[in-house]
């Protein structure tokens, strides 16, 4: 059955990691969802590139972090923090595309 990621995640957020990087965190509600997302490779570079309309070279890494039952995606900022045209100095409101992710759960 197809479900929305908000059923599996308790936190979905974005933030600067320095002025040139944006880092996205998805923290799962429990170990089961963390294991499912990791095993099925649901958060993968192709998906992130499609959601954010970026080339793969803009992705620095996608890492699962077991102690926090979380996955972290780090990418290039579209515009460096505070440079002309930036609309989100702290990078704290760039998470919305992740809210659309769907996954299969049997």
């Amino acid at each position, binding site marked *: 059955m197809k479900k929305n990621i908000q059923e599996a995640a308790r936190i979905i957020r974005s933030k600067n990691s320095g002025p040139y990087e944006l*880092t996205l965190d998805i923290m799962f509600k429990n170990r089961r969802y963390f294991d499912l997302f990791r095993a099925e490779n649901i958060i993968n570079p192709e998906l992130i590139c499609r959601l954010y309309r970026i080339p793969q070279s803009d992705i620095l890494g996608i890492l699962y972090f077991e102690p926090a039952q979380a996955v972290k995606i780090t990418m290039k900022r579209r515009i460096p923090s*505070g440079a002309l045209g930036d609309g989100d100095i702290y990078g704290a409101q760039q998470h919305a595309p992740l809210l659309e992710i769907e996954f299969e759960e049997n």
Partner: protein
Amino acid sequence: MPNAEFRVLSPTAILGYGFPEESFMAGVARRPHLIACDAGSTDPGPYYLGSGKSFTNRAFVKRDLRYMLVEGLKLGVPVVVGSAGGSGAAPHLAWCRGILEEIAREEELSFRLGAIAADIDKAAAKAALRVGKIRPMPFAPELTEEAIDASCHLVAQMGGEPLVKAFQAGCNVILAGRCYDPANFAALPIALGYDPGLAIHLGKILECGAIAASPGSGADCAFGTLTGESFILEALSPARNFTRESAAAHTLYEKSDPYRLPGPGGVLHLENCSFAELGDGRVEVRGSRHENTSPYRVKLEGARKAGFRAVSIAGSRDPIFIAKIDEILHAVRAQVSTMMQNTVPGSIIFHVYGKDAVMGPTEPEKVNHSHEIGIVIEAVAPTPEAADTLLSVTRSTLLHYGYPGRISTAGNLAFPFSPSDIAVGDVYEFSVYHLMEIERPDDFPLQIVNFKRGRIES
């Protein structure tokens, strides 16, 4: 490895963000060996480093610092503030030091201050660049000598070594310029022989105050107890606890890689780290490991002037205007450009709230469902006059622009304010965000000043 506990009180996430007095005094009652606080960040953007101003409020920095100084000196333990003034360059350090001296006079405090500057000499940075000792952080452009020269302020995030030098010189109050956040907490215990991996990991969590607790707060205290094999985290307010998840999750915060956290002269490895709840709102952390790297690298931060800004804020409640907003803005931009005939240099940016102001071209929602939109018209130009002119002409053109299908012909914009145009002032941008190799990690200028009952002793 010392067997005794080393206890650290972290009052707040950033000096000036505040904390409840009850939490702070509960921390003091646990008899900490160190009271330390981070005062800075690059998060608020390039303006603060570039302009030399603080992003924190003077009255509240003074309030927080007064608690730290008075209670720290009463306990007879060191008080450390790093990245003074927010960005930690010379004017920020001087600003924070001025506040500290005021408190010292008012409270008639006696102590030995160590003030450590983090500014990097431009000639030295250019020399390092020429011999290949500077490299960019990911996605930052290659550094140029022009970018170094254009920087209004250039600082390096110092590690713990300059702080240790100040401790060894007998300083019990340390005010450091730009400093690696965890070093404020970790420098002293590492000098006393505690494990650097545990001490830096503890510092990494404490530097955010109670943000790593649950529920998190950037305006509350956190307390850390370091031993030979582990460290223990606890919140000091009954409103929050540390949990295994909250402590572990914090390692993700604002960092690119949760397993490998690079800092000055080394990398903190968390691959074998374990987080265990002790059942009383405390969490014990083990297995954090620090690896020294060679050569020793520090992060440089610089910001340069990028012009002057003026903005105007307006709204629209017209469905026809809203539906055509892209083509209207495009046409207005073209008309302004034709009128100006390139006589006024600068850029116009439309931030259209209700459409894509937050995410720009990465916004996935292409259909606009808003019944009203907000437009921030921004002009950035080489002079304040040019920014004002660009903004004024763009604003009036948009206000009265006759787009096809228009039925509301008295004006396209609702202004919440008069004057509608706001001169914001100087604009800065990051010019340097690079790693530089250094030979002597402790070689940051240390100035020692003795205070006796609030007066500076000569």
